[in-house]
């Protein structure tokens, strides 16, 4: 895909979604700095092209599984930003009633099944959703996001094997940002490209520039078509970077990141904007309007969250077991 006169509207919409994620994450970051949000927080700033490029092609009834860095995935799948922010802030109005928090987002209504705090923890779960999809024969598929750190985990390999053997409609999306927690990938394995592992199990695999929205879309377009046609799993490795540390430790500096010149060169949002502007489809004013609108929605989500009540003590043992 590239920006051209036939798809400007579409591209602008994708850009808008990327800005939603960006604005949301930056807002969450500042709330964390103010200690309005506590615990472990992992932001996907810089990785928006992967979420939007991939998930914009899915149906509502397709299943998406994430990892610990999944706010963007949820938003890209259609999650309500208010309920998402409230969950991250631990409020009763959050998607999980405050029970899950940042790493355990569930927005079932739009098909975002769950995130996880365990590296690679949702990969086997995605297999299950794909298995059910195959049985149901409605053309549904499952997508699971994980990082390069998951490539060394046993369940990742077991899942590749099973998905391949049973030709399950699952798209494995690896966001290879070169770092597993605090160490570079090279300290964890001699393999540089996780797509290689998929090929070992006979799964078609590609490695793309994860900061290029169009490259991600193209790869995902093929993957979705293949899955829906019953051809089995596909693996897409997206090379990207996270502009933060692994987790939020001292986020005060990061609010200024968007302004840094070097950032702008790699920034996936800036790249799409440049592509649009180069085709004269887009003005700076329009870009700014998109940013402002996104920030307004993020602010609204913040207001909503901070005004929401905390969950009550009496809810502590609700929803531990389902009642039939």
């Amino acid at each position: 895909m590239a920006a051209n006169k036939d798809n400007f509207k579409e591209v602008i919409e994708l850009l808008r979604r990327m800005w939603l994620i960006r604005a949301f994450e930056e807002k969450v970051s500042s709330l964390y700095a103010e200690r309005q949000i506590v615990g472990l927080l992992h932001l996907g700033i810089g990785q928006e092209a992967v979420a939007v490029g991939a998930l914009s092609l899915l149906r509502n009834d397709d299943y998406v599984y994430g990892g610990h860095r999944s706010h963007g995935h949820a938003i890209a799948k259609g999650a309500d930003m208010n309920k998402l922010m409230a969950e991250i802030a631990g409020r009763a109005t959050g998607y999980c009633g405050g029970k899950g928090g940042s790493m355990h987002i569930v927005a079932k209504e739009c098909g975002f099944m769950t995130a996880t705090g365990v590296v690679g923890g949702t990969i086997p779960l995605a297999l299950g959703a794909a298995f059910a999809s195959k049985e149901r024969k409605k053309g549904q598929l499952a997508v699971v996001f994980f990082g390069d750190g998951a490539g060394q985990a046993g369940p990742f390999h077991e899942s590749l094997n099973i998905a391949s053997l049973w030709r399950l409609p699952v798209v494995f999306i690896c966001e290879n940002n070169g770092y597993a927690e605090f160490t570079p990938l090279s300290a964890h394995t001699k393999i540089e490209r996780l797509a290689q592992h998929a090929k070992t199990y006979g799964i078609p695999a590609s490695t793309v520039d994860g900061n290029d929205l169009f490259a991600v879309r193209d790869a995902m377009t093929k993957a979705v078509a293949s899955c829906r046609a019953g051809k089995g799993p596909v693996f897409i490795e997206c090379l990207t970077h996270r502009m933060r540390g692994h987790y939020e430790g001292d986020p005060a500096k990061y609010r200024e990141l968007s302004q840094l010149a070097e950032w702008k060169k790699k920034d996936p949002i800036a790249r799409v904007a440049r592509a649009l502007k180069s085709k004269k489809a887009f003005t700076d004013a329009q870009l700014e309007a998109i940013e402002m609108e996104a920030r307004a929605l993020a602010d609204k989500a913040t207001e909503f969250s901070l005004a929401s009540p905390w969950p009550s003590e009496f809810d502590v043992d609700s929803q531990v077991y389902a009642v039939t």
Partner: protein
Amino acid sequence: MLPTLPRDHLLELCRRMFVIRHFEESLVPLHDKGVFAGHYHLYVGQEATGVPALACLRADDYLFTTHRNHGHLLARGAEPKRLFAEILGRVDGLNKGKGGSFHSVAPSLGFLHSSGVVAGIIPLSTGTAYAAKAQKNGRITVCLFGDGSLEEGAAPEAFNLASLLKLPLLFLCENNGKYGPGRAVAAAQSSSMAAYPLTDLPKAYKIPAQQIDGIDAGVVHATISEAVAKIRRGEGPQFVEAQTVRYPGSETNWPTVPAPTDTALAWDVGSVPEKAREWYRSADPLLVYVRELVEASQATRGEIAAIELQVRTEIAAAVEFAVNSPFPKLEEAERGFFA
């Protein structure tokens, strides 16, 4: 092909193969008569892998094996009577009756642990290799497992660690999953492993890997010798997949002996039930080895028959020893789990 070894070594390999064969065959009636209970797994059909491979090792190298461990222990020189006693749960067993077939060990021979969990020993083998490297004692570790282990996440995790840390570790995968007659084991993808050939799995971690005919004692010996030498030179881990044809007696849930082994079968399988005949004719590594010894004039049929007779006698005495060994005292159940 025969290993390139002096005659007396070749005959010793033959003897050990017979020891394994007659040991394993003796277990079946013992189990069926109720002398011991629990699952057990026979190494029949894989003797030409275990015996020549383990002959390449030093006395102080480490070995890890699985539930199919009898052949490995015996190939390395464990006393048949102590292994019988262990399988029978008797106090004179290798583990004093505490382990049984699944967990038989012989630390003096390098076997520190056997696991009944598929791939359970694979991570452990990276540990002894790590320790040997840290202690600079030149010991290598051989991890013996089957094709099924590669389906467990533990295996790629271990490959990654072994390659990353350049561990002195030999992964010897005995793929006995080939069904069908013939020695030149052709490609056959497993229904439970999408990667094919299996060597692609270690190769993904840049671990040198090769597939060999596990029925050919000479190829096994040459390949393992070379792999071991590379590891000792500090070149890091190696992987060898040795392919064999599954023993007909191991096809059912509980082992059976379709035809009791005898040197004579090497030349006439007429007495073997038809269903199993082809296996004995062309895929039985022991009989192949026997034929090769004779064809290469390293031994006469009579000499081999004599070796076998001695082994039969030894095995019979070992069974007797085990059956007469007492069970451990009941108090032992509550002891010996903390050092």
